[in-house]
């Protein structure tokens, strides 16, 4: 029971939650070990660098351990932790959004043809998302991956629904352009191009 990793594999979600509620450090470590890798991906999607993502991860896990006493287990633990990660990331990014507010962007024509991402590794997709302009990156994540509606995004970010939509459209367009290049490269050389 002293080794957090062993506990992490052996214990159920309820046992982990109970241990963390008591403030037991080994249970906290076990919970961290179980979810940190997945959650870092979430943080990476909302940040521009690994260092920034790790800062968000750290801050969010502290919130998880402080807030787990109030976790009512109405959703899965992973879903709840993910929500905290996203909120923490948004909190960090919101300051940047305030300085560089999102505005409506011009209508962008989507590239013709279907773009497949099945052959592209998630790390490459991650880099593509990180390369998006700041506002686009956040709206894309919230809409495409987290599944929020534009209305919800608008409320969360303090922007208009139209802005959210146009930012997403721009993000999608930029990603598709990039993906198209990757697909062409793949078709030509057989594997995804190293970005």
């Amino acid at each position, binding site marked *: 029971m002293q080794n957090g990793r062993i506990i992490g594999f052996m214990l159920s979600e309820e046992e982990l939650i109970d241990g963390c509620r008591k403030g037991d450090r080994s249970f906290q470590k076990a919970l961290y070990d179980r979810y940190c890798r997945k959650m870092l991906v979430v943080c990476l999607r909302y940040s521009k660098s690994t260092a920034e993502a790790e800062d968000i991860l750290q801050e969010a*896990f502290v919130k998880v351990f402080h807030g787990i006493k109030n976790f009512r287990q109405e959703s899965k633990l992973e879903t709840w932790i993910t929500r905290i990660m996203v909120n923490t990331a948004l909190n960090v990014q919101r300051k940047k959004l*305030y300085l560089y507010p999102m505005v409506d962007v011009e209508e962008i024509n989507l590239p013709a043809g279907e773009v497949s991402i099945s052959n592209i590794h998630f790390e490459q997709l991650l880099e593509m998302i990180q390369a998006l302009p700041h506002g686009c990156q956040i709206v894309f994540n919230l809409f495409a991956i987290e599944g929020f509606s534009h209305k919800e995004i608008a409320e969360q970010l303090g922007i208009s629904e139209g802005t959210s939509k146009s930012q997403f459209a721009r993000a999608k367009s930029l990603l598709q352009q990039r993906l198209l290049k990757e697909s062409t490269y793949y078709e030509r050389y057989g594997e995804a191009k190293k970005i």
Partner: protein
Amino acid sequence: MERRKKFEESFRDAFDDAEVSPSENVWINVELDLEKADGGKMKRRLLFYKLLAAASVAFALAVTGIAFYGPIGGQDGPLAERKEHDNTANSAGTNADAPGTLTPGPAANSSTAGSASETASLPYPDHPASASSSSRADTESAAHPQVTAAAPSPSDIASAGTLRSEAPTSNQYLAQHTHDKNTTRSITDNSNNKKTDGITADGIAAGQDQNSETAYGDALLLKDSDLQPVFARNITIGKPELTPAVAEPHSNADPFKLMMARLADEEKAMQKDEKENDRQESLWTSVGMAAGGFNTVNGNVSSALTTLSSNSLANEQIKASGVTYSFGLSMGTKLSKRWVLQGGVNYLNQSSDYTATGFVGDSRQSFFAASVNNIEQLNAADAKQDAKYVPSTPYSVNNSLAFVSVPLQAGYLVLNNKFSIQLNAGLSTDLFLQNTVTPQGEGLKKETQKSGDDSPYRTVNFSGLAGTEFSYKVGQHYRIAINPGIRYPLNSIYKSDIGIEATPLTFDVGLNFRYIFH
């Protein structure tokens, strides 16, 4: 539409099982943050108890110190001397070679030689060990005049004469007297007559004239009851009372009666002084500090703020409980035997933590924690256009209020002795100085707002005070006091026009050091 959906879903699927290992430092930092937070919580929780415990320990130490050293210090040498006498008497009882040994009681019977053998014939079967190691035994022995007068006094004096260097002349002289044949004879005679009390009297009164048999005779005429106080006063007053008797060899007056009269006068004078001292606490000043906690049980946010999404924030802030501390000076005076009036000036600080779910930023790239201050400013008619409230994930904010408090209290002395109990009640005028909002999150600035038009807090507040004061007098001019009390604002600490009401109830425990002028 389907194509779009497919695009988004494919992204979602791509990240479904994606994992990237973070560096080891992340957990280390998480752990450090958790420990820091735990420490902070514990610190806040324990602050009150620590201060209370510190005050209690200081008080207990002071009382213990006074109990042990105060009374002894007041009578200085004699008690200490008396203890030495007792110890000497003990050791003398087992040392036959000790000069001037005249140890009474059974112990002496078997161990003392020479002149002491005469002492052995003294009938003291019921006498407790005369060389008692505690001063309480002295008062007990006062109930046995034949014992106290005859045995302990000479032996004590003799022993002291051999050991103590402070007053060698009189003591050694007296010691020699106990060896004098006439004296020892007198002891035998006295023992036969059960009037052994006279030994001490002889030893002292005839100190200047070894052949003065009449002096012994005079002493023998004294009653037991006359001698009881002599011994008692020998304990409390000690050597100084012996010296004048020796120093007046040719006086016709009975030296014992003179001594008794003098001692009685002194005792009366001392009692009178003590009573006067008690009455004399008519003006004092004190310096003190207090620490405690406060809680706003009846805070209220009116509908004027409901237009803002930050209504809950105002609720959070005003209803947050916290810690308080104060320090300052005060003066007090006695109005009558039981009533006192006291007032002063204190610095008062009230600090609480609340959870904010947003922040306020402006075009100067400054971000502040959301607080009633900001809400009030955003709500104001002349609000800055560039300031904006932005929702965020919850984070902790510390709000610290500073006041100058001018209390005025009336007190009733329930118990007015060295240890006193006083009930206090009164009013305090609290002048708001400033409040400081310190966000715990990174990137947000600390904000301090002084009193004035921009502040949501009233500049002048009035509070009701009630408490109890337990005090102990330390010496003639000092008193130490512990005073638990409550403070309740008679008006809301927020301005009426901002639609927020809060009257935090404070409980604190103070520690005061009082200097009594007269």
